[in-house]
């Protein structure tokens, strides 16, 4: 499948900023079943870019902007070719072992309710348990197409009737880890859960590690494994670690964020 991504992120500041520094995790990389045909990161002001790689193996771009700057628009666009793989991830850069992804973080800590939930639905062999868990998370929450609440933990999200894709992924991760299965957050692009033709945020889903298969991608938005309509960009212990943009600014005032994101299947 050919997926076309057009992702614009705009920050507007109520007062001019003297400096901006951003850490971007917006570069997909080739895997066995994902091939990046073209990819561009563009900023609408004078900026210096530095490519790097974080500890999870994600490709990073440091962005340095001198002020005064009232707003910045970051445009990420490109085309990625994908193959169907039943959600199994082959050929990704894996500097860290699965055991690391059993670690809880503030955002992915399972409370007692979630542990009970995971134990009740996650029955059987790991793969079967993961499918059951993914389906159960999917059915339990109505999908919230709004922008995810910043810093919301899985345990908090679990108390609500609706959940964003990010919340769903983090709940799945917390539940899977509580069953002793390594799980991680994936940020990337997919039209799978769009409300209409656009999305207020890049997509987030989960990967769980199954011995014998490796990392398998689960999306609790659909209740299914991720298929070829997904572009995998970054992985981490939770959504904060895989965030497309982590920024710091030097200046007064507030910031407002606006995201315009389209992911299209070529020919559609």
């Amino acid at each position: 499948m050919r997926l076309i991504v057009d992702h614009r992120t705009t920050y507007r500041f109520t007062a001019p900023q003297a400096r901006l520094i951003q850490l971007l995790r917006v570069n997909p990389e080739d895997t066995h079943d994902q091939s990046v045909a073209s990819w561009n990161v563009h900023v609408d002001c004078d900026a210096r870019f530095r490519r790097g790689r974080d500890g999870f193996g994600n490709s990073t771009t440091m962005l340095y902007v001198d002020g005064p700057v009232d707003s910045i628009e970051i445009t990420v666009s490109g085309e990625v070719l994908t193959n169907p793989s039943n959600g199994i991830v082959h050929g990704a850069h894996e500097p860290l072992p699965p055991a690391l992804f059993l670690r809880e973080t503030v955002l992915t800590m399972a409370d007692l309710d979630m542990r009970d939930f995971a134990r009740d639905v996650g029955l059987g062999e790991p793969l079967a348990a993961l499918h059951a868990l993914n389906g159960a998370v999917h059915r339990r929450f109505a999908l919230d197409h709004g922008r995810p609440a910043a810093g919301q933990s899985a345990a908090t999200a679990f108390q609500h009737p609706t959940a964003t894709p990010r919340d769903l992924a983090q709940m799945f991760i917390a539940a899977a880890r509580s069953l002793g299965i390594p799980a991680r957050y994936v940020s990337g692009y997919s039209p799978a859960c769009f409300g209409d033709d656009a999305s207020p945020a890049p997509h987030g889903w989960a990967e769980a590690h199954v011995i014998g298969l490796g990392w398998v991608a689960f999306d609790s938005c659909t209740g299914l494994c991720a298929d070829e309509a997904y572009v995998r960009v970054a992985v981490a212990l939770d959504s904060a670690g895989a965030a497309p943009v982590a920024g710091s600014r030097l200046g007064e005032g507030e910031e407002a964020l606006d995201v315009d994101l389209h992911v299209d299947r070529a020919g559609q």
Partner: protein
Amino acid sequence: MGQAGSTVARPELAALGAWIDETPDAELRRRQQSAEATFRQLGITFAVYGDSDASERIIPFDIVPRVFLADEWARLSAGLVQRVEAINAFLVDIYGERKILDAGVLPPDLIFGNAQFRPEIAGIRPPHDIWAHICGIDLVRTGPDDFFVLEDNARTPSGVSYMLENREAMLRLCPELFRDFRVAAVDSYPDRLLETMKSVAPEGVAAPVCVVLTPGHYNSAYYEHSFLADSMGVELVEAADLVVDDDVVWMRTIAGRVKVDVIYRRIDDDYLDPLVFRPDSMLGVPGLIAAYAAGNVALINAPGNGIADDKAIYSYMPEIVRFYSGGEAKLPNVETWRCREPQALKYVLDNLKDVVVKLVDGSGGYGMLVGPTATKAEIETFRAALIAKPHRYIAQPTLALSTVPTLADAGLAPRHVDFRPFVLTGSKGVQVVPGGLTRVALKEGSLVVNSSQGGGTKDSFVLMDNGAARGQRQSQGQSQALRPELPLHHLPEEANGRPPPAGAE
């Protein structure tokens, strides 16, 4: 320094006994007060968490020095060098190839489940592959040749300013001691530290710019930060003074931007860079980790070092030393029960009254149970905590710690001590500074030496010979040979069966 309770004499220190005999108590006290007045004037204060007038406190100073003989020091140094080399090798490996896990020396979940293992910086290679540039290794002694490592400090060990200030005070107040003893100088420490920093600058930097990065004057160790910067002749900076641009760290100065090559940071990993660690950190420098990963700056000590001095890892240090050095550890560990192991947990629960229980990620003497002095309620609280989360705890036996003569209210008396020597690692090798921080539990019978819990400090003399006193005092040692380390008072019997002092801070 004999085994506590058995009062082994140290005839070679007769001159120290003579000095104590000759100097009136009132004079010793006057000197001690003079030293403390100086420390207060200098602002060598520390904060106790939860204490509102904390900023007024100084760490009490004891005028009677502790002495190491040249031979003792040589043995200790060899052990320290071996241990710090192993710590560095471990850090290179654990954030790199992880051969030690392949070899089955450590259980992988001990690393990967440990918050001190920082995946964010995995794969980064610090300049010259050196991680633990400054280590403070906490030692206790239970017999003439029995030193044990109580704790490794490979993050940002503090206390070196006390080593230097205590020495300065002793030189001023007790100059006669330096005539009687050939004491190795410690005042080269700032030069050695600066040499170490320069030696680990990124490749190709001819005249590296070094700075000390402090969280600010509210930090309990701020005095030390400013003292070290001042004595090295480098800038003391806060986060706002540094800016990262194009993956290079710059310092703002009135003359414009200056490129920074080596940062001795006294800020915890969590607060170092809000883009990578805690996003709410106001103390850190955005982009610092990117500059570090790009190889454009050396961070001293390297971020991620907590995995090497974590108390859960500590119990494996003999194996770690063996794995990387190929030989047995010259400095042994204190016996440690890993409560994560069911059999060890059972033993600890059955013997809570006799052991010391520590949180694996605690420090400063907090989160600790000292069984022999704990109340029943405290013991039961720890019992419940141990049962709920055993992997968070280790336990150690009570030790018969050495005591040294210390000026107490009623005159000289034995008090328990520990010792923190400082070990520097640069690209040219490892060196042990001939001295260190002796911490002393000032309360009678107490084993808790932490400054936050009633501990004090004293100077630590490392002799360049084995103590044959020079000059006129030599003849006065005749009656000292059969006395305990402290000549005036016998050691109390209860020195046996006590817990080791608390951890570092």
